[in-house]
């Protein structure tokens, strides 16, 4: 048979079959060994990796604490906001190979639902197409399309969500200040952490995109307000889509609840704040403070010009934030500066009670000492001016009618020295920070003889003291310092530490910590001298010839106080912008006082920057504030004040 004839041909292969088989067996053996290693020896390692693959730790957001006024009215809260995200790849398609991508019908629908303008649509389309064409990872990631879209838009988009794959509405929390610009400086605003800040703050748990308090209470009390994030472990697939939980995947706890931030109850009274804002309506720049004389609690603290912290805090988008910052820092009136705490100004005539106290306490004068004012005093080679020729003045009239010559004479004739004034000033808290604990507090300046000598290259002139006696020269004070010092005059000599946060509360309303009034020091105010100064301050408002009398006659409030007109160092008038030079060369207008006069409860200080005369410009504002405060007090006496309900 032919078959049998062919057999010997196969002999060439015969001895090699078994080597071939052996080799193949060996290869399978290697595989078996490898699978033994993977599936038996290292199984636990790979099972752990497989579990890790599908577990994601998702951060759970916390809510920032609410800041309320003394009656529970919210001053800063968080409101829900909605950001619109789009995944570029899912709203674009490539029609032809090599052609740039085009938008899908989904995008057209979105544009229609949101009524986007042509220009905006064009810009967004260009951006999305560019991202897709670039081909990187970003095309699959959500891109922020619009921040803080309206509730109407959210409603429309959620109704049509199924038609809009790749379009996502993400709810975020935005800081919200219902009082807008009122009291903005005290409350502060929020800002997004920048990379430099993050480098230090990451340890405290901040991440990209977080907002932190940028100024005011928001900044100082950040650690109380911010709360603690929680997290939750969830199951996701390779594409990041959520999947149902499986038992046995997660070791240990699967969730840690977020802890909401602490709420703050302030000493501020939102109505007083609004009243101050109203009273200062006509003024460009300045500051005002209303302080409880028996505790140092701040009822009102307003700085002008203000700003809307809502815009700065990012609720309306990054563009708005940028614009708002631009405006804030390009404005010559310095809206960013808290003029009640961070700005120091010469106190002008509001300083006179303290010079008087220096003279009285040293026994250099008594109430009957009189000087004659001809409208100026020549001292050394210089002529020191008065506002008018007051004629014969005693202490009472010198304060009430604000006679400078009387105070010049205290230095020139009666021997009041720089250090005497500084000593009294120091006792009333000048030249040192009050310790309010918000914003960058200015300490002001309470110059001593030694300091003045040093500053003037070793020369001290008595003229410095003459200036210091009427609150000019090197002496500067802050609005808050002055308010607390007048509060000490009003309450008989107790200088309080200012207090703006009364209590820390949990989100549930339990008080965590309540802050008691803290006495900074006793000023050793002799009751006799207090009566003298008080009567003079009262006359300054309520008697003919008093500097604030004209205003008082119109408003009729029960207040004692002192006006002040602080000269500013003049700017060159040669500048092109005459209007601006005129404004900035005007004096600062002051009013400092307290009310009611019989048993003082609040101290009020108003500073109008470059306002001109104190009696014309600061006194009306201050008296209006006191009047509003009286009205509120009367209204509240009728109905017991109760905290308002806060909607979260």
């Amino acid at each position, binding site marked *: 048979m032919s078959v049998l004839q062919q057999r010997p041909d196969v002999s*060439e292969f015969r001895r090699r079959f078994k080597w071939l088989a052996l080799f193949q067996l060996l290869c399978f053996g290697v595989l078996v060994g490898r699978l033994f290693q993977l*599936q038996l020896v290292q199984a636990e390692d790979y099972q752990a990796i497989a579990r890790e693959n599908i577990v994601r730790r998702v951060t759970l957001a916390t809510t920032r604490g609410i800041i309320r006024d003394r009656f529970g009215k919210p001053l800063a809260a968080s409101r829900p906001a909605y950001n619109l995200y789009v995944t570029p790849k899912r709203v674009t398609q490539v029609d032809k190979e090599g052609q740039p991508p085009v938008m899908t019908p989904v995008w057209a629908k979105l544009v229609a639902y949101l009524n986007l303008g042509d220009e905006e649509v064009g810009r967004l389309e260009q951006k999305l197409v560019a991202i897709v064409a670039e081909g990187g990872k970003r095309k699959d990631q959500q891109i922020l399309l619009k921040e803080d879209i309206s509730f109407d838009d959210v409603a429309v988009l959620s109704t049509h969500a199924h038609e809009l794959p790749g379009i996502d509405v993400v709810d975020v929390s935005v800081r919200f200040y219902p009082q807008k610009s009122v009291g903005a400086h005290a409350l502060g605003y929020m800002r997004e952490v920048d990379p430099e800040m993050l480098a230090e703050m990451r340890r405290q748990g901040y991440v990209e995109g977080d907002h932190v308090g940028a100024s005011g209470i928001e900044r100082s009390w950040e650690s109380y307000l911010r709360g603690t994030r929680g997290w939750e472990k969830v199951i996701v697939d390779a594409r990041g889509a959520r*999947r149902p939980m499986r038992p046995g995947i997660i070791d240990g706890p699967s969730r840690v609840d977020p802890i909401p931030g602490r709420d703050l109850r302030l000493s501020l009274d939102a109505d007083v704040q609004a009243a101050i804002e109203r009273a200062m309506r006509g003024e460009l720049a300045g500051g005002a403070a209303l302080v409880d004389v028996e505790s140092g609690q701040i009822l009102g603290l307003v700085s002008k010009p203000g700003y809307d912290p809502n815009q700065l805090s990012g609720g309306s988008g990054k563009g708005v934030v940028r614009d708002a910052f631009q405006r804030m820092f390009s404005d010559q009136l310095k809206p960013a500066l808290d003029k009640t705490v961070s700005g120091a100004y010469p106190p002008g005539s509001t300083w006179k009670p303290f010079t008087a106290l220096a003279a009285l306490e040293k026994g250099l004068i008594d109430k009957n000492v009189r000087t004659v004012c001809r409208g100026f005093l020549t001292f050394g080679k210089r002529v020191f001016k008065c506002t008018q020729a007051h004629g014969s003045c005693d202490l009472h009239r010198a304060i009430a009618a604000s006679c400078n010559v009387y105070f010049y004479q205290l230095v020139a004739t009666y021997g009041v020295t720089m250090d005497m004034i500084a000593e009294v000033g120091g006792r009333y808290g000048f030249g040192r920070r009050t310790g309010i604990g918000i914003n960058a507090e200015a300490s002001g300046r309470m110059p001593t003889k030694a300091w003045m000598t040093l500053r003037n290259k070793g020369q001290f002139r008595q003229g410095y003291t003459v200036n210091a006696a009427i609150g000019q020269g090197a002496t500067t004070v802050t609005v808050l310092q002055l308010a607390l010092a007048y509060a000490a005059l009003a309450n008989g000599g107790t200088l309080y530490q200012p207090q703006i946060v009364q209590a820390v509360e949990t989100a549930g309303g339990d008080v965590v910590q309540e802050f008691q009034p803290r006495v900074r020091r006793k000023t050793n105010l002799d009751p006799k001298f207090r009566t003298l100064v008080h009567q003079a301050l009262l006359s300054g408002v309520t008697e003919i010839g008093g500097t604030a009398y004209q205003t008082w006659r119109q408003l009729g409030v029960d207040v004692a106080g002192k006006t002040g007109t602080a000269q500013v160092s003049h700017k060159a008038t040669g500048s092109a912008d005459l209007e601006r030079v005129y404004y900035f060369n005007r004096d600062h207008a002051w009013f400092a006082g307290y009310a009611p006069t019989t048993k003082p409860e609040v101290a009020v200080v108003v500073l109008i920057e470059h306002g001109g005369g104190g009696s014309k410009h600061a006194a009306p504002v201050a008296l209006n504030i006191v009047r509003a405060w009286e009205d509120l007090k009367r209204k509240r006496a009728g109905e017991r004040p109760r905290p308002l309900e806060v909607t979260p």
Partner: protein
Amino acid sequence: MMRGGLAGRPRDHFDWPLFIAAALIAVLGVVNLYSATSVYLGTSRAALAEIYINQVYWLAIGGVAGAVVAAIDYRHIERFAYVIYTLGVFSLIVVAVLARDVRGAARWINIGSFSFQPSEFMKLCLVIAVAKYLHDDPRSEPRTLKDMAIPAVLVAVPTALVVRQPDLGTGIIMTLVFGAIVALTRMRRSSVLIFVVSMAVILPVAWQYALPYQRARLTSFLNPTADLTGIGYHAHHARVAIGNGGLLGQGFTQGMQNQYRFLPDQYSDFPFPVFAEEWGFVGSMVLIGLYAFLVLWSVRIAARARDRFGAVLAVGCGAVIFWHAIFNLGMAAGVLPVVGITLPLFSYGGSSVTTVLLAVALLMNVSMRRNATFSPVERL
């Protein structure tokens, strides 16, 4: 003269072990394909969840084609061996000229909605052609390199064509299948030495001409944890899936790596990790056992073949299955670099399934027509 033989004797020799081993692998393959693509249920790619049905169709078509091939005495195939080979090479040239680009590689010929991959079938054409050459060239003396020049050219032409596509995997398979056949011949020792030395020179040069993605795969294999999100992603997640299977596996359709969609190409190039994760070490052993059996059985068929053509054909077809299985399992298990090589009867694809079934049919053909009275196995 063989008409009568075909009608009677081969039927008595129906190779049940070969048939059962192939059938078992095919059944497991379909079951595994169902699980692998079940992740697409309820997604925008839900159609993919139904491809296991297509796979059954392909098995049926391949089975019918295989039955026809097994029924024709392979000596008729021998007679047309070079014609078959020429048709195969021609179809590769057609691909090179016409084929549309499918995922970066032109491998397909489209006829209407039907597309097939000539390079798959070419492997068998190649085996047939080389078998024919060796059949016609019996030697009693050891062969020299020059003696193997013609079969080497027979291999080099289609290999060059598929590598150009670029389909490096198929090129490697073709070369290695040829290697298995050459290993069967008696070569002169000096020739073997010259061959080994020249390879040591040529391979580094070839490396210079490899495409960037081919190089990247190899370097990634040598340093597997370097880039887990990029080129190393496939290998990493395949390894995790296999390891996650443990001893007994996570159960049918319960493999986490697959269900959570960490396994790419799980129905084409990486069906084994799905299987290994669901059925564990035990299941993997069963599958590897089946492949090993099939491959060793093919050597047995070769050893008992009636003639040189049959023997080389059986070794070649066995080698096709062997190298596919070893490369695919090896790359899944991380002992070989990732190259696109399918797992016989497990990977989805008409050309692949049909080719493997035809290889089995050729084995069956040789086995059925073995010389019962003159068993070479006794001499093994």
